[in-house]
């Protein structure tokens, strides 16, 4: 059994030797240094893998059957291998970037890199200790790390004005996510949210333009939103597996129908003109104030909704039954919980809250625009998923979604701050979702489900 580590070290040595030879050859042939480094690294990886595959692994099998307990070093490696690999990759990327770009090797960048690596170790290491609410924990760590990075790299990132603007945008996203979270808790999806937001946005301005008092107009819009949600719920109840696509269809129909209705008799189809009342503007504008306080009311509205949701989900019968239904339909039915009522209920809430978001967005922008909800099409889904609410139902909550929303918002702000454009932000969002979800929402292997 003692031959195994020896074998491993020999393999490592051989691989290093070959890589060094190839590096030297590359330099001798006057290749650029980066290219030679790259080829050397590739050669090293190939040789090491081949050695591991053909020489070490068969030996390992023998060792495993011998029943030798792995030492503490093996234990550490087993637990932290993802973190070690990821941290190594980041450091390697940092070194390559410093070699390739002039002026990259600054103190700030070094600290930022170290923060990233520490973040990964911290989240992986501590998440092993925490079993419940692991996603919230990781989300908070990522949030803190991102904020730290932003404060280091971007001027004025931690200033009051920037915090306020981040919170305003987060409020809109957070309100749009209320319905998505509730629906996801039952294992459904609601893709009609952006269309309802856009329709409410245009429709509210249209109704105000007709001369209806704004307060009544908003109530009317909320009721209409709830009606769309109700239709969503009733129609998708029998088609739960296809709720995604059904709500999408309803969304298309609602946004098309709204635009046709508001275009009748208008010379400029698709554009609605009107005067947004000042108090609605104050509700959502960046410089709005609440009872003299210099805080936009929309942030407080979101805070109130969030507290209500978190407490309500934990402490009311309605909230507990929702979890029961999402967790296991059969056992919930044994408790005589009506699945139909709850399914339709969450969709109705989703429609009403989406309409509210649309109305608030009207106050923010001051003009109706049907496409105002488009960014929320997949963003709500991303926030819910990053927060850690399972799309299969029964696991998660609005508190998690708040973390997801904040992570997305801080990340957006950070990316804007370091000068990345919208398309790069979207690209990074896409790449970020996967590892975040992979950290805590992996489904079990099929062989454990039989």
């Amino acid at each position, binding site marked *: 059994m003692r031959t195994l580590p020896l074998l491993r070290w020999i393999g490592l040595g051989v691989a290093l030797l070959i890589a060094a030879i190839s590096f030297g050859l590359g330099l001798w042939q006057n290749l650029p240094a980066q290219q030679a480094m790259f080829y050397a690294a590739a050669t090293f990886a190939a040789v090491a893998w081949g050695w591991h595959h053909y020489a070490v692994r068969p030996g390992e099998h023998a060792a495993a059957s011998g029943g030798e307990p792995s030492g503490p070093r093996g234990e550490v490696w087993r637990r932290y291998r993802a973190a070690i690999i990821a941290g190594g990759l980041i450091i390697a990327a940092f070194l390559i970037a410093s070699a390739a770009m002039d002026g990259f090797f600054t103190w700030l960048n070094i600290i930022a890199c170290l923060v990233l690596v520490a973040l990964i170790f911290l989240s992986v290491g501590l998440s092993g200790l925490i079993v419940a609410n692991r996603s919230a924990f990781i989300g908070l760590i990522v949030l803190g790390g991102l904020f730290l990075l932003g404060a280091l790299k971007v001027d004025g990132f931690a200033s009051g004005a920037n915090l306020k603007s981040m919170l305003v945008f987060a409020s809109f996203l957070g309100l749009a996510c209320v319905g998505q979270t509730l629906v996801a808790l039952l294992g459904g999806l609601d893709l009609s949210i952006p269309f309802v937001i856009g329709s409410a946005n245009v429709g509210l301005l249209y109704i105000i333009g007709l001369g209806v008092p704004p307060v009544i107009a908003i109530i009317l819009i909320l009721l209409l939103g709830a009606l769309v949600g109700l239709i969503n719920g009733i129609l998708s109840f029998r088609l739960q*597996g*296809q709720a995604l696509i059904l709500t*999408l269809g309803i969304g298309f129909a609602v946004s*098309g129908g709204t635009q046709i209705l508001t275009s009748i008799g208008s010379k400029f*189809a*698709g554009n609605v003109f009107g005067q947004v009342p000042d108090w609605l503007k104050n509700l959502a504008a960046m410089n709005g104030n609440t009872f003299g306080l210099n805080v936009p009311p929309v942030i407080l509205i979101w805070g109130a909704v969030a507290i209500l949701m978190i407490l309500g989900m934990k402490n009311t019968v309605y909230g507990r039954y929702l979890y029961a239904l999402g967790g296991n339909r059969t056992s919930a039915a044994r408790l005589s919980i009506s699945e139909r009522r709850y399914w339709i209920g969450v969709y109705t809430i989703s429609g009403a809250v989406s309409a509210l978001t649309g109305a608030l967005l009207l106050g923010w922008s001051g003009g109706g625009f049907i496409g105002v909800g488009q960014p929320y099409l997949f963003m709500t889904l991303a926030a819910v998923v990053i927060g850690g609410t399972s799309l299969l139902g029964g696991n998660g909550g609005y508190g998690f979604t708040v973390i997801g929303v904040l992570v997305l918002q801080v990340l957006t702000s950070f990316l804007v701050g370091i000068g990345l454009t919208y398309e790069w932000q979207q690209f990074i969002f896409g790449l970020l979702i*996967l590892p975040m979800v992979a950290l805590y929402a992996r489904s079990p292997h099929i062989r454990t489900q*039989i």
Partner: protein
Amino acid sequence: MSGTVAAPRASASSAYLLVPILLFFVLLIVAVLRSPHLITSAGIGSAVIVAAPLVLATFALMAIAIAGRGSVDLSVGPLIGFINVVLVQLFGADVISAPLEFFATAIGLGLAYQLVMGLIIVFIRVQPIIVSLSGYLALSGINLVIMQRPGGTAPDWMLPWGAGTSIWSPVLALLVIATGAWLLFARTAFFGHLRLMGSDERAAYTAGVHIGIVRIGAHLIAGVYAALAAIAYTALISSGDPTQGTTYTLISVTALVLGGTSLAGGRGGAIGSLLGALNIYLITYVLATFSFGDVQSFVTDLAYGTILVCSLLLTVALPRLQSTLRHVSPLLFFILLFIVAFGVILHATYDYGVPSGAAQAVAPATFLFEDAAPRAAAAMPMLAHPVALATVLLVALLAVLRWAIAQARTRSLSPLVYLVVGAAAVLAVYLLARPAQSDVMAPAVTQGVK
């Protein structure tokens, strides 16, 4: 006997085809009545060009949807856009120019992307919808990085592909080959494994199917079809467009559902998806013949949404209709409706177009339904009457044959009864129609010859 067992099962699984078939012919008839231009060489040619990317994208979605776990590949639209802009940019940089290089690059990109997606889903075990969402965001971001705004040119050899002046275009060949390849693929054992895995993954695993390999295979097939869709799309617009992602995803998911593929997995076919995509094209075409002016796109949205929801609801109702529809085979249904549609096409082409000369040929789409009815009645005796008669005869004959065959297995005398009754019906129709036929036939024939 294998025949008795297989027949009912075959009709049960393909009963889902009845909805797309019915919708297809209804739309076709309306489209032809609204604008007979559709049934000309140029009309069909342009239909093929416009519909080809959609059909191929639907095939790509279908491969993954059959694999189950609720996987809808949301990233298919951005993937098509990605391959499109990469091809155009590479052509602009003189890296690739020959057709073979184009195809190889496109298919290579599609395969590589879907391979990564498949590996992530199989080994990291994140929910497929999240993986595709992540791919959607990442790709639509990177598309805008590769090409900021629509632009660039397609190579010269591709320009005639997108002309659409004749039925016989390379795009049609592409479409036929792709459909044929799917039909061949549907006969392989691999496809059987795919369907088994889609409808019950645990059963497939315990039956010894390598579900990881099958799932990755489904993704690779989807990659090939997405690449072909990207090539057809490049031919259609003769340039690069990074922004079409969302639209294509939504429309092709709609087409997939219209074609009767189950998003829950396990069910789907090339004919259904083909019809679904053609239905989408026809909806747009029919709506375009009504001139709604500024609200045109809103009406299209409304129609998409409504039709999507209705066809989803129909799939709920279908199992209940199955008992009554058991003896209706989709093929028979298709043939019957085809004959009806053919009659209408002949009627619309010859009876409207030729007799009253140029006035109607110039503006065929101006009449509405109200005044179409009396004109149709006036034009009826010219050619439509014998066609309608022949249709009724054929319908009766086919229906009788079908029922006779269905009843033949019971080994009773009932087939004989059907035959006698059917023969009597045919005879009665013939006798009734003979006087009318003898004096109408002559002008109708000369009309046809002209």
